[in-house]
């Protein structure tokens, strides 16, 4: 004997404060409880993969800025690593260090955004978000100093990086690194022990380790479920094998664990950057490559650990200056597919928090 109700269909999005972009959830509800959930994507589709087949490899780098627009550096890095392996381009050591520094800075900025919006989704009126934006702002300034852009950086090049950072960059970076741990502590003290936040996120949106692997979850979401899988450790690229850092993994696989994993990764990133700054050698920041690079025919799958997880580029070359196939394995899209498992059967607020904890970027989903 259950209550007889009309099917109550709620369209969350395409414009809704907690979808973080133009993306739609079609939710069938019974009172406050979600009975069914459909994810409708494609509002931001820009046909990046097809466009890439008409452009040279270097011309494709700016596209990746726009895919995951919160982690442009990591995306640049991924495509450059893939093409370098395909074409056999050597990267100078200084460039590798610079890449690590910028990728980790990008990770801090992106995690700041992810955790801030997660707490906003849980109902805090944007204060945690803006606290983290304070540091993100400084990181974006560093980006601006180096390459002139804040969001769509287009900084990495095949065979190195576009520019060597200006001299004032290093002092500003050092200042940021010095204050960053206290800033993270301050932020954590605002949220981590908050009983309301705990009540909202503990045991909400639980994904078991087995489910996470079966659903090919990646990144902090996977590590939140307890699986110690980080490409920086598992398949070190650039100079990550020379860095000393730890990988945080969660205990329960709930929203709170994913949040804490991101917070800890921020601290680890600061450590990595400190080591990289200490070790960075002098030298060229770039090897020269022909303007129209023609890699030998073949295929390559290059992957990096972006802020949202494993970001893969599958590139097929037929010997011409343009790639024959250019596929992006976007972490957001694949992480999003587990939302249904988390959201069906729980109430709407829990689903919103679970969605926030996956840290999707709609540009990355639709490409």
């Amino acid at each position: 004997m259950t209550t007889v109700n009309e099917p109550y269909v709620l369209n969350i999005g395409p414009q809704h404060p907690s979808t973080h972009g133009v993306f739609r959830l079609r939710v069938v509800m019974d009172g406050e409880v979600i009975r069914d959930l459909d994810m409708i994507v494609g509002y931001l589709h820009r046909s990046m993969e097809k466009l890439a087949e008409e452009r040279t490899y270097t011309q494709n780098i700016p596209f990746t800025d726009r895919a995951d627009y919160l982690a442009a550096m990591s995306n640049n890095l991924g495509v450059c690593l893939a093409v370098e392996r395909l074409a056999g381009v050597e990267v100078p050591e200084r460039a590798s260090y610079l890449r690590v520094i910028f990728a980790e800075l990008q990770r801090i900025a992106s995690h700041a955004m992810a955790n801030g919006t997660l707490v906003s989704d849980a109902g805090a009126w944007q204060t945690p978000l803006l606290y983290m934006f304070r540091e993100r702002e400084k990181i974006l300034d560093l980006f601006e100093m180096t390459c002139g852009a804040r969001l769509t950086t287009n900084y990495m090049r095949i065979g190195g990086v576009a520019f060597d950072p200006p001299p004032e960059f290093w002092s500003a970076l050092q200042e940021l690194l010095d204050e960053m741990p206290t800033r993270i502590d301050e932020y954590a003290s605002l949220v981590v022990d908050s009983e309301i936040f705990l009540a909202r996120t503990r045991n909400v949106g639980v994904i078991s380790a087995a489910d996470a692997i079966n659903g090919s979850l990646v990144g902090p979401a996977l590590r939140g479920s307890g699986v110690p899988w980080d490409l920086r450790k598992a398949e070190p690229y650039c100079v990550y094998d020379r860095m000393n850092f730890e990988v945080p993994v969660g205990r329960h696989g709930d929203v709170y664990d994913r949040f804490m994993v991101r917070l800890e990764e921020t601290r680890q990133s600061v450590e990595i950057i400190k080591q990289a700054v200490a070790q960075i050698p002098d030298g060229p920041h770039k090897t020269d490559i022909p303007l129209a690079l023609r890699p030998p025919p073949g295929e390559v799958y290059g992957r990096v650990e972006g802020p949202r997880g494993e970001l893969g580029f599958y590139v097929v070359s037929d010997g011409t200056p343009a790639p024959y196939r250019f596929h992006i394995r976007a972490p957001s899209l694949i992480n999003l597919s587990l939302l249904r498992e988390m959201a069906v059967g729980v109430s709407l607020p829990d689903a919103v928090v679970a969605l926030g904890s996956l840290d999707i970027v709609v540009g990355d989903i639709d490409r």
Partner: protein
Amino acid sequence: MSAEAPRPATPMARQILEHRSLLSRARALPGEARFVLAVLTLGALVTGAGIGFLVVTGQLDGRWYDIRDLGNATAHFRDWTQRQGIDSSVPYLVTGLLGGIGILSLVGGWLVIGVWAERRLIAKFQIRQGPNRVGPFGLLQPLADAVKLLQKEVLIPIGADKLLFFLPPILIFIPAMLGWGPVPWAPKMSYADLNVGVVYTIAISSLGVLAVFLAGWSSNNHYALLGAMRTVAMMVSYEIPISISLLAVVLFTGSLQLSDIVAWQAQHYIWMIVLLPFGAFTFLFASTAEINRTPNDIGEAESEIVAGFHTEYSGMKAGLFLAVELGNALLVGAMMSTFFLGGYSLFGLEEWVPGYLIMGAKTFLVYFGFVWLRATLPRFRLDQLMAFAWKFLIPLSIIQLLFVAVESMLIVQSGLPGIVTIGGSVIINAGLTVIGVRAWANAIGYSPKEMASPPIMTNGVGGLRAAEQIRAAS
């Protein structure tokens, strides 16, 4: 700024660095302005000293020009009309009309300042600047917003119930204004000092529920209906703890009249919040639920249901909803200071400072608390709030009520000096609050500290097996 310091990061940071403090601006004033300011300050000091002399010699008490209590003026007006042989309904009408205009304009002005204060304060909490362009310090920003809202098109959604869609913004405004009626601003200064003030307050606050439901139901919008039903469920649940906590206050003071409650606190030199800490907490928390403010703003939870019951309202209708929300926060501040913070009294200072200023300051203090909460806390979930009301607040309030009944009997009938009975009550209630809350939390199995566990740090790499090993090791 020294030369080697990095340039300010952003335009905003540049603005913050270049922003001069009020003191440095005052130092930069020209000499004439300083002279005028000094004369004005001197004048204010002399006037204050004169008033102080009048107060000390008692020449002011009860005169019509005694501005410490505007009730004096109305009483004198009533006497005067009686002496003139005018019908007794005339002074009631005149004072009623004047008082009504007074309350409306006071609350209206407060709303404007409240919007500005809330935005500025939250901006400070969030390391931002807040509105600072329109007028001095951005003070005219709320007016500009109101003008903007007035210009906006009023949309009526397809399928909306035309009549009932039109009514709620007005309906919700009425109880928000009526609630100010019995608030005592000074010993004799109260718009309608009802015998049944406490019950009246509770009754009026229960009227807003219907307007909220109608707004949500008539909008023909799923978000609106969800928000409306959430709000209705919350308001109904949280009315009970509010009533019980106010009952405890009434048991001590022995009167349902708001002015008597304040007078009791002034007379015994104690605030109810000291005497009834749990009652004050219950009232404050339940009030945030009633008026939809963080951490209990689930009725209009932005990240979940957009704007709740007023999602479909646009233009000044939405503006009215927002104004009422703010007005209710101020009203709760006034109620909180009346019931628990000693109202217009401040341990004798009310002899010197007009009571309504003290009352206003206390009200704004509570309002500041609301703003602080809003800037800090995340939001509860509906079922958690319901469970909190029914499993925690209501049982504990009832237990407290039993104790308070005995204590109030002792205070009135034992014949012991007040310091013993009231002091004993303070200690018993404080202990009861601590012990009761802890025992109840244990009984329903709540332990937040165990929940907050940091992630495990590892150096390993692997799949499912590694995950199991790590979990087993920790």
